[in-house]
């Protein structure tokens, strides 16, 4: 230590006005940011708590496994519940593989040329298209042009088109998270692009890819507009408790549309039923998200770096 300077051991650690001010600002910012973040939790708790409170009188297993009755003024949710599951599963069976493979191509193979740029532009713009426009596209392309009629298949394909760009974007992010140096090391060892992808890139991005895909479940389950003209109906009775009660070339009920109908179109609905429907809709989505988290934790424990 140079004793000629001002910072002698005695004065070095005493607080100056500037350092005190910095410390205060630091504390204020920490508290401020914490409070803002905490605000996130409040709406979620209020929504779920309120829904539960209102729905309590109708919630039971029967509510889930019986069809609506008396022009939807009573009864349960079986037909719309199963319909939503059909729509979500079929749409993801289409959009997940296409989206993931497209993202692998765009991120791992595509060179920076006009085709890649146009594709990326299309993906970004497709993600920004409002869902009602997807609905109109679905009516034109699947219901009328492809001749699928109003059916689960047409509605699912419409949902697939809607979720596709987001799946491509989230998969791209997951692939980019795998360090470039891993790929270079593989190429230097004489591996092809596909060998590199299969042995290194995909095993180390699969958790991120699946998370992105599964997050689209909640979107597919929650959207009303894309399905109301392409395959969802106000009312349709199906065999109760039979998981295969729907045929994918026929129409179905769906939770989101059902909620809309009984809240706005049908007078004198038992008060708890719309809230119960909302609970089941939110519950289904949360259940799938929880499954996604479990899967991700499992895959992350196997992550290698």
């Amino acid at each position: 230590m140079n004793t000629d300077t001002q910072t002698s051991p005695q004065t070095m650690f005493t607080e100056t006005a500037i350092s005190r001010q910095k410390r205060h600002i630091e504390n204020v910012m920490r508290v401020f940011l914490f409070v803002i973040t905490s605000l996130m939790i409040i709406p979620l708790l209020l929504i779920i708590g309120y829904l539960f409170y209102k729905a309590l009188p109708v919630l039971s297993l029967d509510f889930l496994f019986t069809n609506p009755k008396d022009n939807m003024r009573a009864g349960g949710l079986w037909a719309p519940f199963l319909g939503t599951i059909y729509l979500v599963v079929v749409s993801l069976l289409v959009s997940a593989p296409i989206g993931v493979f497209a993202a692998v191509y765009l991120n791992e193979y595509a060179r920076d040329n006009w085709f890649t740029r146009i594709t990326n532009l299309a993906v970004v713009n497709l993600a920004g298209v409002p869902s009602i426009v997807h609905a109109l596209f679905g009516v034109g392309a699947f219901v009328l042009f492809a001749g699928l009629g109003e059916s689960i298949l047409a509605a699912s394909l419409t949902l697939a088109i809607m979720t596709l760009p987001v799946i491509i974007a989230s998969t791209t992010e997951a692939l980019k998270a795998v360090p470039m140096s891993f790929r270079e090391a593989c190429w230097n060892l004489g591996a092809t692009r596909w060998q590199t992808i299969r042995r290194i890139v995909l095993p180390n991005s699969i958790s991120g890819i699946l998370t992105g895909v599964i997050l689209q479940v909640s979107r597919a389950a929650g959207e009303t507009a894309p399905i109301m003209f392409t395959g969802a109906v106000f009312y349709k009775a199906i065999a109760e408790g039979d998981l295969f009660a729907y045929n994918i070339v026929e129409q179905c009920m769906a939770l989101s549309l059902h909620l809309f109908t009984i809240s706005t179109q049908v007078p004198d609905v038992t008060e708890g039923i719309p809230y119960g429907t909302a609970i089941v809709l939110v519950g289904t989505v949360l259940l799938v998200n929880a499954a996604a988290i479990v899967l991700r934790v499992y895959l992350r424990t196997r992550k290698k770096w």
Partner: protein
Amino acid sequence: MKNMHTNGNNGSQTTPIIEISDLKVHYGDKSALNGISFDVYKNEILGIIGPAQSGKTTLLKVINRTLEFTSQTSIEGSVKLDGVDISTIGDVYGLRRRIGMVLPLPVGLPLSIYDNVAFAPRTAGVRAKSELNEIVERCLQQAALWDEVKDRLDTLGTKLSGGQQQRLTIARALSHQPEILCLDEFSIAVDPVTTMRIEDVLDTLRTEMTILLVTNLVQQAKRLADRTAFMLNGDLVEIDTTDVIFSDNPANQATYDYVNGNFG
């Protein structure tokens, strides 16, 4: 530093294995190599020194054709390997396996130590367990890593220390039995002790293969290289025996300045 005096050009090592003539590389509008020509002799250690941006890494990427993964590059001139222009080689993956490549930062692939070394043989189609075992042991031995990891070959390569990962990288580069080993500033992220262990490894490998040693430590080239090339801003300033390059009168004043640390 017991190998300090083993270098020095021995007259029989003059069969060219790589012939580079008038090689020009552009990244977009920017020139990275402006027409360089030289030969690499069989079983020599050729040191390549020069400051950043002088084109050393680009040169290595041209030789194993991984520059093709970078977009917007153009290559002119020719690089011949054993007399064959590499741009005409159809099996580019086979070409890359003839050249071992060690990059500046150690990269343990997110696989077990065993799988790291077995990666290249497997991609080339080797399936027999006994053969893979033999390759893994031989390469880890050659890279002076075997004794430290032989009891935990199923540990992740990414969990090793930086110096161990760099030796793992060298073991991996040797796993496909290359004729040429290229090292690109391998000591940049490893401690001095590991650096010296790797230098010992290279010294024992010099009888089996040709080594291109790109280095930012001029003393490393002096210790190991038979000949040394000095590159600057995409030009090959001078290539000669290491003794001449490090002598008081190399052909070019810039070489003298760089080697003696009074550059610029």
